[in-house]
């Protein structure tokens, strides 16, 4: 008779149990191969392509080295103006999103009843999933010549803004607002109540509390939100194409050059990449990345 149960023989499990590093490598091998091997390499190849040029006669891509594509971003007036315009639009979108997200967040987190808060949280999240193109189409229908806005304004004898930069900004706000509203709301909600009491005890009125206590504390959330509102606006071009009238953005230049002149498209792609990477670094330093 044997009271001792036979220990199952599991060589692989035993082997891995003692070696956490091997386990970690095994876990990360596949995803890192994919993300680095497919994505990062693609981005790197894009950077490489940015230094190539095309033959002016045959328009074939020539493998070589020139920094002209980058120089052109700054020296060709049309390119430079487009970059500045795009930057301006992205900043405007971010500012508008912040301006609406903060009051909304304060109302939801601190003033609304629980069921109103939950309802609003769902109401803000839902459009995120309606789809990019669908929302673009919706804005186009709303602001078109025979659209809702013109119809609403007709009794006052004014015509709506029509397609142009303001509607482009509005559309981008419409597309990316939830990315700002949700982290800001979560951050305000997490502020302990006694901070508000302390602020009130020290004599601060509502708005003073907001600007001097709430705002500094939710800055990481605002940065996390603006990573999306800023970077996604910076690279967008379909909004400009469909509701922007003649507005051109960096994305328009990239998209129209990818087949005609890939090196130029590649060089221009580096502009949003540079901004986004810079932004993500700041976000990581302020601990905002965990909030995404």
């Amino acid at each position: 008779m044997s009271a001792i149960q036979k220990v199952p023989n599991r060589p692989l499990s035993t082997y891995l149990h003692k070696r956490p590093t091997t386990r970690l490598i095994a876990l990360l091998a596949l995803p890192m191969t994919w993300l680095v091997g497919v994505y990062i390499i693609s981005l790197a190849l894009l950077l490489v392509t940015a230094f190539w040029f095309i033959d002016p006669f045959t328009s074939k891509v020539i493998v070589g080295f020139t920094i002209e594509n980058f120089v052109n971003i700054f020296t060709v007036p049309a390119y430079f103006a487009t970059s500045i315009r795009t930057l301006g639009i992205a900043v405007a979108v971010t500012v508008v999103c912040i301006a609406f997200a903060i009051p909304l967040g304060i109302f939801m987190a601190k003033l609304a009843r629980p069921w109103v808060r939950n309802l609003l949280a769902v109401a803000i999240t839902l459009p995120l999933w309606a789809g990019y193109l669908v929302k673009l189409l919706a804005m186009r229908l709303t602001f078109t010549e025979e659209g809702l806005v013109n119809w609403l304004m007709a009794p006052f004898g004014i015509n709506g803004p029509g397609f142009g930069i303001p509607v482009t900004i509005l559309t981008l706000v419409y597309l990316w607002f939830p990315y700002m509203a949700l982290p800001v709301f979560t951050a305000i909600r997490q502020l302990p109540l006694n901070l508000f009491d302390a602020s009130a005890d020290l004599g601060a009125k509502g708005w003073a509390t907001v600007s001097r206590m709430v705002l500094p504390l939710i800055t990481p959330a605002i940065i996390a939100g603006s990573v999306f509102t800023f970077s996604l606006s910076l690279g967008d071009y379909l909004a400009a194409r469909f509701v922007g009238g003649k507005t051109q953005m960096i994305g328009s230049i990239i998209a129209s050059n990818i087949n005609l002149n890939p090196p130029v498209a590649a060089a221009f792609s580096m502009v949003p990449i540079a901004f986004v990477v810079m932004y993500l670094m700041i976000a990581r330093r302020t601990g905002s990345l965990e909030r995404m």
Partner: protein
Amino acid sequence: MLRFSRASRFSLMAIVAFVLVFMYAPLSVLILNAFNERQVSAWPIQEWSFKWWVVAFESEEIRAALLNSAIVAFGAMTIAMVLGSLVAFALSRYEFFGKGTVNLLVVLPIALPGVVTGVAFSNTYSNFLTPAGFQIGYFGMIVAHATFCIVMVFNNVFARLKRMNPSLQEASMDLGEGLWGTFRLVTFPQFRTAFAAGALLAFALSFDEVVVTIFTAPPGVTTLPLWILAEMARPNQASVVNVVATVVIVLSLIPVYVSQRLSRTENEK
């Protein structure tokens, strides 16, 4: 407690109301226009009709596009399920050098603008792979979609794993179960709802993605968003586009709704 004057309270509420109208009015206009009798969408709608729904359902083109969207979304979802869970396990269980970078790598494909991701893939496919004699074709679109879908599965699984009790797995190992058995019998049942929720979100994300698709779809292949885009580029907006757009809204909201339900029931336990 945060106190506001009556006027400030009122203006806060006005802002909230404005935001809600701003977010829902355009979508309502779109959905209502799917029932517009006229060929060209406009507001106000004078005559209502279901005729564009009939047109949409009878269109071969739209059916083919729907099928492509579903295939791509399913492929991307499957790849993202595997890769996203693996990263989630690595990041939730281990401390190691470069952890932040790995996290950044997962987020990067959705943090970078779609046009950059799209152009990067398109450039690799047409300027590197094709000259090297390798035609990636249809699969290229799935690869691109999978890359930005990983983060969806990762986020959901990671959040669940963080909350799970590691001693349950240790107990299972102490009782003699191996790595695979522990995973199958102890770990997986605990995170499978988060796994399914993340997968559904990945499906929804891929299903209505358009910018990356523009650059990676092989010639002649159309997904539902690409079909909408092509129609939008025509001078007069046909009402049938609104039907398709409404269908896209519904088809992406269903997975999101199911995913929310899955996460919620598990959180209440």
